């Protein structure tokens, strides 16, 4: 497969493993997942990009509460209203999401819990790749063409409610058919468990995330010397980005 993503147009050398991870993720976005086919996953990606110049999202960001502003989103696809609301809100205003909001958007059944989890994975993969490119002065990469295929419909059988807003798989509930969900005890942090209802979606996102940050099973290894900046410097960047997002986690 030819590489869709490369950084030849910018004057910086990007690690090979990072470029490979981005290309792998780009391909995964175009392929059928467990609950969304390739065409729909690419529609999710298009809406992630569209959300940034959506008038309603802009007005909500300025408002004291996002619930105070009604209207229709500017959309780029024919996804249903609940799907577009979910994609735009997660993309542009994640720090003010709530369980009440999620229940309202999923109540009518237009978006199921499994599809919601897979959408988060796609949204976050697009977000990571687009923001990294922009950070280096690289223009957005064109989205790939969809790959034909049917969703598998796989839901991890051990997924249950455990204090988050969605069902997830605790390590002791993981089934062999889930594949590897947790590579170590350290890799079972709450945020890592969050997408385990859809195991492939979870792995796809964290494989990409790990290539940009550090492998999540090594987060407590403070002697790890895998990057060109120190661990404290890494965490300063992570903490500031999280704070600007108003992320309590």
């Amino acid at each position: 497969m030819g590489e869709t993503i490369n950084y030849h147009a910018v004057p910086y050398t990007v690690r090979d493993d990072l470029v490979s991870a981005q290309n792998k993720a780009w391909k995964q976005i175009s392929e059928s997942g467990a609950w969304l086919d390739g065409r729909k996953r690419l529609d999710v990606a298009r809406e992630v990009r569209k959300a940034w110049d959506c008038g309603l999202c802009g007005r909500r960001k300025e408002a004291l509460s996002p619930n105070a502003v009604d209207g229709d989103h500017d959309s780029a696809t024919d996804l249903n209203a609940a799907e577009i609301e979910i994609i735009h809100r997660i993309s542009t205003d994640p720090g003010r999401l709530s369980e009440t909001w999620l229940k309202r958007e999923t109540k009518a059944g237009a978006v199921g819990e499994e599809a919601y989890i897979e959408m988060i994975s796609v949204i976050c993969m697009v977000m990571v790749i687009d923001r990294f490119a922009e950070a280096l002065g690289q223009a957005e990469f064109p989205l790939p063409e969809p790959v034909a295929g049917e969703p598998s419909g796989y839901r991890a059988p051990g997924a249950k409610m455990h204090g988050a807003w969605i069902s997830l798989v605790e390590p002791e509930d993981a089934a062999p058919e889930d594949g590897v969900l947790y590579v170590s005890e350290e890799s079972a942090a709450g945020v890592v468990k969050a997408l385990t209802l859809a195991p492939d979606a979870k792995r796809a996102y964290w494989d990409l995330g790990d290539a940009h940050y550090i492998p999540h099973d090594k987060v407590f290894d403070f002697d790890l010397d895998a990057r060109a900046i120190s661990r404290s410097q890494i965490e300063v960047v992570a903490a500031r980005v999280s704070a600007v997002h108003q992320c309590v986690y």
Partner: protein
Amino acid sequence: MLRASIRKAGTEYDYSAITGKVRGDGGIPHAQLLADFGEAITVRDKAKTAEMRDALVETLGEAGMVDAAGVAAAFHGNVRVADATGAPPPLRGDIEKAKAFQEEVGIDEFYGARNS
């Protein structure tokens, strides 16, 4: 993770710099520049991002700037996974101490903390 990495390094840092209450590097070389780079990427200020990028290449080298960009990008995903799923914050150990730390840094003023 920041607190743990600083304890491990045996250095000093004013954590309220995370939320921009104070400015400075503390004991972490170029911490302010790195934080400013992360913030510029997050608010999508392309001019500021370019300015910080050049400054980081000069101070930390190209590979350091690229890795900092990678971390900033990764946390655009990580925060959304946490916020969109309601993953409970990892308040380990002494909960009262953890809450006091959130207050000191200014995390208690975040929308999600006020409404949880």
